[in-house]
């Protein structure tokens, strides 16, 4: 408790209140304010991603949600890194932005031999590396051979060369790849080709991240000039890029890391970045807040992902050893189909995705139209709780006191694995609980930060599942083959959820060996039809790609597919290659913020001066006694 005497001295204390700490604090605050003040008037809206920078340089800034893991094409696996590699290096082939069909890249032509085992690529003669050396077939042969002979170099893209027997370059423009067995994906070798004369000196491919010497030698539409981990990646236009039809219009592209999506949206709103994408999409709330905002366009295109429920068909190893604890009731196709017939995908699209998705049907999203399949009316397992109940009755799960009870007298209670970080899983889980509860089936939603351990241990009944699909569907089909099963129990493997079926495997083999695109697509559709009937995978929705950009910085930009597609994470470099800046005459100047910034800066500076003055005066007023 303060004494009366102490309280009485408050006034006096107030007048002479001064201490070393206070001076220090004032100095700190002054320095801090000065920093802000200095920075503000000089640079009021600092480094906004203006289409035209001060030196006339046109810069496009993209907000990234992920950190770059590596800039080495042999190591990088994240979407952000592989998207940047697409700009730095040329790939053997590319995909047409209109409809995803394969178009020339580093190779201009390709042809299989009659026995389907040798592919000959004609490599373009008009491509050169940014250090002036000619880019040839030898570089491509070096890249593939390195991946085939060095395990470290196979880290990122080793699967592409798994079936390669031998790769040679008989001339500067000819690349020959001999296969062990036929492979239809030879036109979709998504591998960046690196310059041999630079990479042949790399000693340890497992540690070389290609991020020390700038500019990095490449032959893509952009040259990487600067990189700072978790901060930014800068690329400048490559004036020597072979595709001259419409050279990049922006002089520079800067990928800036924003670890928080809301902060990235704020940066777009401010104009500090030109483009923001979600991971994988902006949330409905973010999209809604940006819609209607001046100078911002929200772009919504058909997504490349599917969102599904997967069932556990009984976990097993490659040699047939069973493990895990999946509910045996789900081994019955009728039970699986009954569950899926009581999932109202329309409600999920409307309520959970708030319209930013398309109702699910076949396994491959409709944007890949060559491979898209949807069930006929007679095959369709549409939402019908009545039919679902009948299917369960037939399967021997009769309704007893509101619960489905099997022949063994046990109630049908299931678990579903959900990703704790995905709000969609949680929301859909609530709906499923309600719908399946009405059917008499109990559901426990197990939300985990990382579901991979119970998943690969086979300790689940159902799981929320989703994959991003490539223009070539081989990958997403391959994860359901018997070859993808684990060698040992509980060990992570290429499998998605332990599906292993002879018919599916036969079709997989046929599509992989079929070089006729139409016939191959037919096999792929048959596989999708089998997956649908099996009830192992229930595709509920295809979430849209939702992203946004500033129209006062980007005049136009190519989506993929061209008609209503996405911008970020395209199969190709089309978006950034085609982006057109707003010219200074197009853009209504928004210098008002600059003016306000200057005013604020002056006010802060004035406050600092006044504060400093006061401090000085009070210091002078202090008595000699106090200073001692």
């Amino acid at each position, binding site marked *: 408790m303060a004494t009366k005497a*102490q309280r009485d001295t408050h006034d006096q204390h107030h007048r002479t209140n001064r201490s070393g700490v206070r001076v220090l604090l004032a100095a700190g605050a002054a320095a801090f304010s000065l920093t802000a003040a200095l920075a503000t008037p000089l640079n009021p809206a600092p480094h906004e991603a203006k289409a035209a920078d001060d030196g006339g340089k046109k810069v496009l800034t993209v907000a990234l949600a992920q950190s770059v893991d590596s800039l080495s094409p042999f190591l990088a696996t994240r979407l952000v890194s592989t998207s940047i590699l697409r700009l730095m290096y040329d790939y053997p082939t590319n995909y047409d932005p209109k409809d995803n069909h394969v178009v020339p890249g580093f190779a201009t032509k390709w042809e299989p031999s009659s026995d389907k085992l040798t592919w000959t690529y004609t490599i373009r003669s008009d491509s050169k590396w940014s250090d002036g050396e000619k880019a040839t077939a030898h570089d491509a042969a070096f890249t593939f051979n390195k991946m085939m002979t060095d395990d470290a170099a196979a880290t990122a893209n080793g699967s592409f060369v798994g079936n390669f027997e031998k790769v040679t370059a008989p001339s500067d423009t000819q690349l020959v790849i001999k296969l062990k067995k036929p492979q239809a994906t030879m036109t979709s070798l998504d591998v960046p080709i690196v310059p041999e004369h630079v990479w042949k000196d790399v000693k340890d491919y497992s540690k070389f991240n290609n991020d020390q010497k700038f500019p990095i030698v490449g032959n893509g539409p952009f040259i990487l000039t600067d990189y700072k981990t978790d901060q930014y990646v800068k690329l400048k236009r490559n004036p020597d890029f072979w595709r001259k039809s419409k050279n990049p219009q922006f002089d520079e592209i800067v990928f*800036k890391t924003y670890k928080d999506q809301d902060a990235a949206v704020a940066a777009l709103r401010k104009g500090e970045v030109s483009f923001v994408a979600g991971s994988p999409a902006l949330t409905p709330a973010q999209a809604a807040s940006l819609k209607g905002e001046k100078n911002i366009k929200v772009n919504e295109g058909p997504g490349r992902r599917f969102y599904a429920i997967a069932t556990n068909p009984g976990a097993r190893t490659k040699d047939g050893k069973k493990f895990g604890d999946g509910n045996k009731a789900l081994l019955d196709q009728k039970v699986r189909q009954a569950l899926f017939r009581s999932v109202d995908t329309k409600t999920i699209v409307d309520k959970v995705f708030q319209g930013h998705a398309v109702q699910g049907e076949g396994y491959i999203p409709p944007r890949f139209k060559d491979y898209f399949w949807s069930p006929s009316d007679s095959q369709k397992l549409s939402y019908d709780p009545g039919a679902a109940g009948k299917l369960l009755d037939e399967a021997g799960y009769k309704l007893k006191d509101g619960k489905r009870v099997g022949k063994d007298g046990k109630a049908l209670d299931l678990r579903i694995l959900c990703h704790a970080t995905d709000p969609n899983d949680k929301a859909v889980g609530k709906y499923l609980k309600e719908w399946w509860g009405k059917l008499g089936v109990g559901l426990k939603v197990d939300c985990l930060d990382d579901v991979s351990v119970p998943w690969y241990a086979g300790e689940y009944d159902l799981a929320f599942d989703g994959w991003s699909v490539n223009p070539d569907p081989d990958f997403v089909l391959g994860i359901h083959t018997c070859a993808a099963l684990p060698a040992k129990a509980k060990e*992570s493997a290429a499998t998605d959820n332990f599906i292993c079926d002879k018919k599916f495997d036969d079709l997989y083999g046929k599509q992989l060996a079929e070089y006729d695109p139409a016939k191959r697509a037919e096999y792929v559709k048959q596989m999708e039809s089998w997956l649908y009937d099996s009830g192992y995978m229930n595709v509920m929705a295809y979430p849209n790609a939702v992203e946004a950009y500033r129209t006062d910085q980007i005049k136009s930009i190519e989506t993929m597919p061209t008609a209503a597609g996405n911008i970020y994470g395209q199969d190709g470099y089309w978006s950034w290659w085609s982006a057109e800046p707003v010219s200074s005459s197009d853009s209504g100047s928004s210098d008002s913020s600059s003016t306000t910034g200057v005013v604020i800066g002056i006010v802060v500076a004035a406050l600092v001066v006044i504060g400093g003055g006061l401090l000085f005066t009070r210091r002078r007023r202090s008595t000699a006694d106090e200073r001692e």
Partner: protein
Amino acid sequence: MTADSTPALVQPADGPDGDPATPAGTLSAARGPRARTTTEYLKYAAAKIAGAVVSLFAVLVTSFFLFRLIPSDPVKQMTGGRKVSTEQLANLRHQYGLDQPMWKQFTSYVGDALTGDFGISFQYHTPVIDKIMDALPATLLLTGTAYVLYSALGIWLGTRTAWRNGSRSDRFNTAFALTLYSVPAFWLGLLLIIVFAVGIGPIPGMFPTGGLESGGETGFAYVIDVAHHLVLPVITLVAVGYAQTLLVMRSSLLDEMGSDYLTTARAKGLRDDVVRRKHAVPNAMLPTFTLMFVNLGHVVAGQILVETVFSWPGLGGLFYSALSVPDLPLVQGLFFVFATAVILANTLADILYPLLDPRVGR
């Protein structure tokens, strides 16, 4: 880190061994009631250092097992979404040493760590120690600046509020500090971004929305640029952090305020301001010093959420991304560095404390 590794909050000066007549003298061991011999002190310091070494080893062991308890599969996480054969996955597990028996992984981890080698980061393919050294300056800059500011602000306001105990400004300052203290730092950070980075109403966007620099600046322009980026994250950290110092300072000064030696000082005719600054505050500072040392240890760890919201390229953000894989070598290395910083700060506090308060360590 532990309660016994830091000195307890003591009642200085007017405690049983205090010297009421010369309160300021408590800051000097030589002027204490019984001078400590050098041997005594060295023994005390050696015991503390030995304790720290044991703690460090315990942390090393804990960091290995702790993160292996997280149910996850780093290899599957890192290759997620790409076509990888089951054989390739096995190859990667081998490359990362994850196929080795646990005891083998443990012994090689401890052996390597003792030589300063924390292995290669799974996701960045870079030695962990390089990754940590790259991110450390950014964290030290951010949390170090905030540390100095919130400690100074807390001490200053704590002194003011205690001296004016019960006044309106005391009530307001305490309540305001406590309110900020209970605000989630990331939420406050986002709010500051919306108001001062994007701008709202008449307030223009004055500061960058995130990052440490704009890129491309050099020399003085670079310093200004970094300082500009530093403003909002530092304000966030100071706002949520100064209350702790304020409250400790306030309560220990309140304890001093009724002391006889202050009455004596006043009786000598000293002005109230001098009594406060030269007699009361130095004694009340001791618990605050303890807190400051504890906080000093956390400067290295950074603030994970604040670094994330402001995309600050420091250790906190690195830890966040390493945990999401989990990138075992990186999380282990970071955990060890964080713990080491706290242990070192506490040991330093232990060693220095007898010099500040002679009663400690007897």
